[in-house]
């Protein structure tokens, strides 16, 4: 009895949530995260959220390329790392301020992206995945080869931060708002691109390249376009993260690491490939599981940390293969349908009862 009531309460709640337009819902969620520093969270939590925002931008950029255009990239850290390294090198050699180095670095990577993409997009499917995996490794070896210029494996430390004038404690809050703002801007831009007419062409390439060609689409051009846009936002995430206090204000070859490339794939798949908003939610959820639930609540020793994290992800992906975002929307659709059927059922039942009560001509 209680369960039926709970279920009904849940379903009506869900249906009412469904009635809220998605834009308003997104806005409300944004207000929620915006008001979070009011609760005076610890530095650890802020740090975690800042990293989650960076990961969310990165995952969104991956989602445009892979989720919408279908060009599988397993080396997306290439753009992230290039963005981080170029801004760091600009500071290291020319002593430029942050607000100059980041835009220049993003512009350089955006210019490089078509050059990188052109040979990449000659190959398809698994071969593309393989080529894209190899590229960051090449860059890492280049960095160690030119160690006089790039500092090699030691990386570049002590990069300038964003808010040098603020006291230490408040810098995290400021960085939190900065990354949140960047996430908002870039996700809105990416979402708009993904749902524009150009975005439709991206999906047509994912669905059927041949048919897309037969529609008169220059698919190489569109693939390069997706590659470049995706590279731009990945580079932005990388360049910004290099200067964050939350990431130690340093750049090492870890920013080009395969771990990062795989992490972004995990985030996007967990959130729901091709949704553009799924990866954002997933970045926060996974960051919370990874850095908070496992570390602070369950007190997992660090050597088992990664193992448990992977197990959690495997279970979640098995349970929701289409991603969290798709799972939630599907569930809401199902509830809506169930409710409609229930209404119709009641109606039929009433008619049946009425018929039974009224005397039939045969009787």
């Amino acid at each position, binding site marked *: 009895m209680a369960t039926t009531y709970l279920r009904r309460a849940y379903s009506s709640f869900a249906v009412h949530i469904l009635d809220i337009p998605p834009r308003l819902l997104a806005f409300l969620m944004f207000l929620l995260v915006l008001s979070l520093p009011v609760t005076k969270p610890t530095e650890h939590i802020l740090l975690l959220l800042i990293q989650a925002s960076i990961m969310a931008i990165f995952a969104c950029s991956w989602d445009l390329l892979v989720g919408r255009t279908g060009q599988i990239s397993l080396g997306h850290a290439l753009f992230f790392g290039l963005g981080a390294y170029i801004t760091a090198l600009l500071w290291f050699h020319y002593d430029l301020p942050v607000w100059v180095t980041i835009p220049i670095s993003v512009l350089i990577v955006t210019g490089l992206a078509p050059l990188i993409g052109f040979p990449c997009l000659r190959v398809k499917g698994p071969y593309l995945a393989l080529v894209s995996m190899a590229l960051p490794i090449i860059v890492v070896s280049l960095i160690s080869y030119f160690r006089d210029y790039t500092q090699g494996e030691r990386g570049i430390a002590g990069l300038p931060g964003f808010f040098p004038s603020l006291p230490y404690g408040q810098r995290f809050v400021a960085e939190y708002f900065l990354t949140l703002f960047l996430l908002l801007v870039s996700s809105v831009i990416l979402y708009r691109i993904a749902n524009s007419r150009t975005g439709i062409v991206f999906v047509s390439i994912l669905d059927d390249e041949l048919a897309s*060609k037969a*529609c*008169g*689409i220059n698919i190489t051009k569109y693939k390069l376009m997706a590659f470049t846009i995706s590279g731009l936002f990945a580079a932005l995430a990388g360049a910004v993260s290099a200067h964050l206090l939350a990431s130690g204000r340093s750049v090492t070859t870890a920013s080009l690491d395969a771990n990062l490339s795989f992490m972004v794939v995990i985030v996007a798949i967990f959130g729901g490939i091709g949704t553009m908003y799924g990866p954002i939610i997933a970045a926060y959820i996974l960051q919370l599981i990874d850095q908070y639930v496992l570390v602070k609540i369950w007190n997992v020793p660090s050597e088992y940390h990664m193992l448990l994290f992977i197990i959690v992800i495997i279970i979640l992906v098995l349970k929701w293969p289409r991603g969290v975002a798709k799972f939630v929307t599907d569930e809401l659709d199902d509830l809506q349908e169930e409710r409609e059927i229930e209404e119709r059922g009641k109606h039929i039942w009433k008619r049946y009862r009425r018929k039974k009560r009224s005397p039939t001509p045969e009787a």
Partner: protein
Amino acid sequence: MHLLEVENLNKRFGGLTAIKDLNFNVEEGEILGLIGPNGAGKTTLFNLISGFLKPDSGKIKFKGEDITGNEPYKIVNKGIARTFQVVRPFRHLPVIANVLVALKSARGSKKIEWVKTPEAKALGLLEDVGLSDMMLESAGILPHGDLKRLEIARALATEPELILLDEPFAGLNPIETELLTKSINSMHLDGHTMVIVEHKLYALMKLAKRVIVLHFGEKIAEGTPEEIAKNKKVIEVYMGRAK
């Protein structure tokens, strides 16, 4: 001048000759039928004209311009559209978005000034083929007959001068065949030139004024539908030699 000229076209796959020394022309405004038994090279010919395959030798000219071996999208943007024998919709996209993709091509987007938005034009095209009711449905759930008509709407969106229809009637029930015949006829009245590959001879004979018969990549007959139906060689190819 002919709209499309095919000169001494050859194509082989390994040891198999798919197209052998083929010559034919397509005149402006006509409906040309292309028939032949299975494996005669009809679809290969379409793939050669639309650029999906490169010929071994020979020339394809469109409006006097050599288009042999061009990229498929360039050929579409010159004014040759095609449909596929096996339907190839963009299954993740809504029906109207399928047409919008074609309207995003260089040729499809160029000729759009007289309507306000591409969406309006796409809707008009869907109305022409009778699919406007389900424009927001995902293309993946449409029945086969609707997808065939969607392919035609998509081809029309690129404002083609020549349309290559690869077995448009395959797998359609009589009512769907009737509907499609109507839309092909109205396309013809609008001044589109068409080449139709078809196995359903009854449907084809009603549309085409001129028919070419292929057999193992060679042209064995050409003429009006009546002439073709009486041609001994054609009957032999389809039915076997009379004893």
